[in-house]
């Protein structure tokens, strides 16, 4: 019932360690909708992990392939994603 503290503040990152998605895996219910929505096919449910809720959470397979289009975030019922746009020159890890 307390208001959301919001996602962790996004700190400046060194170009090399940068990823376009921050995934709050513990919220993920493995519904697969983001996987279906991603035009780049860079999301997958991680069959090897189980989160607190008992689901296989989503995983970004290829940060470099992600265009930050945020389709995944728009379809996600559990608001799992923070999507960042690439700072110029950043390498997607």
């Amino acid at each position: 019932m307390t208001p959301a503290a919001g996602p962790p503040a996004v700190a400046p990152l060194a170009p090399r360690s940068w990823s376009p998605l921050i995934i709050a895996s513990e919220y993920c219910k493995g519904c697969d909708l983001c996987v279906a929505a991603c035009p780049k096919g860079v999301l997958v449910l991680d069959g090897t992990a189980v989160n607190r809720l008992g689901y296989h959470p989503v995983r970004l397979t290829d940060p470099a392939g992600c265009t930050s289009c945020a389709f995944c975030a728009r379809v996600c019922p559990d608001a799992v994603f923070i999507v960042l746009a690439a700072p110029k020159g950043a390498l997607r890890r």
Partner: protein
Amino acid sequence: MSTTPATAVPRVVYRRPELLTERSTHYCPGCGHGVVHRLVAEVLGELGLGPRTIAVAPVGCAVFAYDYLALDFVEAPHGRAPAVATGIRRVRPDAFVLTYQGDGDLAAIGTAEIVHAAARGERITAVFVNNGIYGMTGGQMAPTTLLGQRTTSSPAGREAASAGYPLHITEMLALLPGVAYAARGSLVDPAWIGRTKAFLKRACEAQLEGTGFAIVEVLASCPVGWAMTPRDSLAFLRERMMAEFPPGLLIDRGRSAVSDRPED
């Protein structure tokens, strides 16, 4: 825009809206309610309405909406959200009043209340999540269940002869002069989700403009009630639900032209 140096803060394209609490929802995987909650949080946040919103929670899977949306909430009896909201509206002229209802709640037991709140032109913004089923109670037929659709109370598929036809209640409401705005969105894909958000925003603006009652029906999936994977439920949503209930703007009495394009 200036070129961003390599060490700049990355631009946030999307983040969890502030009006969503930190709690994980009780919704099933792929449930449309989660998306609608998020859109409501985004719209209210963008319009700065959070601090003056009084929301009314339904009886249905979204009964716990107050756990997920950081708003003042009143829980209404099943179907009575529009009456509860009317009471709030009248004594709190400055508040922003939002109702959230499912299709069983709004279009079955609550038919009289929604029709009359609309007829009175109450300045209320109604969010109507139509998933064509009673999710909360285990997947029974709703007024909006499609012909032929199997549910736990129409095990052979809904038959018009005994159970009647899917109810287009938003179209009925759109006839009423008290209704300033009525639209139907869908959660079928990112584009429609964006459009739905625009509808919601406009429906909130209608209340702010004081032009009357505003409603947005959102076609949403209930994978568990439909006995489908979330992915399959989107196909059902597109091919069956959207065929019966064509999404789009139904009426905007407040403005001559409505901005109906997907938000981006």
